[in-house]
């Protein structure tokens, strides 16, 4: 066997083993969470509040809290992000201003999440007097999701063929009609992708809600946006760091992690399905 063929085989072996190692991490990670978490899963675990200092009962308030935090932060960030992306791609003048905005967005994307938490506390909780609340947490998470949504939407809008825009304007459409009737519908599936990614990010974040929205323990569900809430990631953190019954708390933490994972996966699955349906009906 000559040296070139040997090198080729070696190369493929390196690639294959990298893939296997990566996949192995994921499999072990998922298997462990399923194995440790599945045992505590029950209807009561999903539908009841925690009892006996978090050593028994369920996680229902945390589930509801994370659901509301995610939905409300995305509802704030998605329109803001898409509108910003439209401005950057379609109006974008003057150039220096656009450049500064873009630098700001990319910087925002690189800020550690604990900084978002501190910022949210300073602005929403203290300055605007929202207190520790669903609203303050949702706003903080929305800022975290913004750069992801803006970048994905900008990319999506830019990838719409120029021909479509020209065709629309040549038929006497205004810039606004062109954006609304041609650019946005065409870019929508890719904008949705950005939203899906940010849902995963937002639902799993702990640091930004630590000082702005989350509470260790609450038996009742939030009644207004100004109530503090329990949240799944923060609940895991609490179970692992607080309390004195580690033997009882750790399995509950695994169970909570499993629920969080399934929640994010199912939200993503719905969004991916919607995107798939839209893409199937349009080809170009």
């Amino acid at each position, binding site marked *: 066997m000559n040296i070139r063929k040997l090198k080729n085989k070696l190369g493929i072996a390196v690639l294959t083993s990298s893939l296997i190692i990566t996949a192995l991490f994921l499999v072990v990670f998922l298997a462990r969470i399923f194995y440790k978490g599945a045992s505590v899963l029950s209807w009561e675990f999903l539908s009841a509040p925690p009892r006996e200092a978090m050593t028994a009962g369920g996680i229902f308030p945390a589930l509801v809290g994370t659901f509301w935090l995610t939905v409300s932060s995305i509802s704030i960030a998605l329109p803001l992000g898409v509108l910003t992306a439209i401005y950057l791609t379609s109006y974008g003048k003057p150039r220096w201003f656009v450049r500064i905005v873009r630098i700001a967005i990319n910087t925002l994307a690189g800020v550690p999440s604990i900084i978002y938490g501190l910022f949210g506390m300073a602005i929403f909780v203290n300055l605007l007097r929202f207190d520790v609340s669903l609203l303050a947490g949702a706003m903080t998470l929305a800022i975290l999701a913004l750069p992801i949504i803006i970048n994905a939407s900008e990319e999506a809008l830019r990838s719409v*063929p120029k*021909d*479509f825009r*020209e*065709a*629309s*304007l*040549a*038929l*006497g*459409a*205004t810039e606004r*009609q062109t954006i609304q*009737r*041609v650019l946005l*519908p*065409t870019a929508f599936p890719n904008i949705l992708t950005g939203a899906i990614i940010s849902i995963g990010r937002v639902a799993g974040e702990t640091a930004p809600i630590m000082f702005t929205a989350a509470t260790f323990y609450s038996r009742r569900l939030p009644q207004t946006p100004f109530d503090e809430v329990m949240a799944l990631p923060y609940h895991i953190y609490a179970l692992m760091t607080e309390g004195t019954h580690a033997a009882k708390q750790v399995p509950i933490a695994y169970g909570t992690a499993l629920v969080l994972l399934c929640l994010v996966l199912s939200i993503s699955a719905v969004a991916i399905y919607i995107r798939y349906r839209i893409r199937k*009906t*349009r*080809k*170009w």
Partner: protein
Amino acid sequence: MVREQIKTEKLNLWFGSNHVLHDIDIPIYDKKVTAMIGPSGCGKSTLLRCFNRMNDLIDETRIKGKVLINGEDIYAPKADVTQIRTRVGMVFQKPNPFPKSIFNNVAYGLAIQGKYSKSEIKDRVEKSLKDAWIWDEVKDRLHESAFSLSGGQQQRLCIARALANNPEVLLLDEPTSALDPQSTAKIEELCLVLKNQVTILIVTHNIAQAGRISDFTAFMYLGDLVEFGPTEKLFTVPTDNRTEAYLTGVFG
């Protein structure tokens, strides 16, 4: 006597510091086909795009002179660009239907004006598709994607889309250069019929095509309008030797 529908007066255009059109004076006659020919980069497409102000989309475009449509200067400060573009339709080099249904493609121009009822739109869509000779091929699948059509069909759909606005002028920017010979022949025949209802301006790289379908021909070279006249005359006894050289294939 034919009527001058469009007229340019000392039209000059710059992209940045690049002087693309020099003192163009050209008449376009009502309900006739006018072809614009010339080598690549001579400014013929740019001139075409002056008639519906599509050059406005390019940054740093500067225009001096006048473009009069029915005596009205479309570059006057008070001119309404969207209204001009509904009166002057355009078909592009590459078929560019929207990612929408066949029906919605043709209905688009009417829908955005927001002054037509559903039944009016339906009637106008049907009429436009018939006028563009594509009705029989699509009447049973109006709600399928426009991308299910062949290239030639897509281009006729784009013609139908432009006709739906009932324009006075139709600009065709090399409409057949991306099509096969059969589709090309069909669109050429279509032009000869459409000129009964709309003034047609066509930019083409294909000299023979200009000869087959146009009543008047403009030959452009390096941003100058070198020669303009009835197609028959320009093709048989050109007055400028650059025209003659181009037509006989000395340069292209």
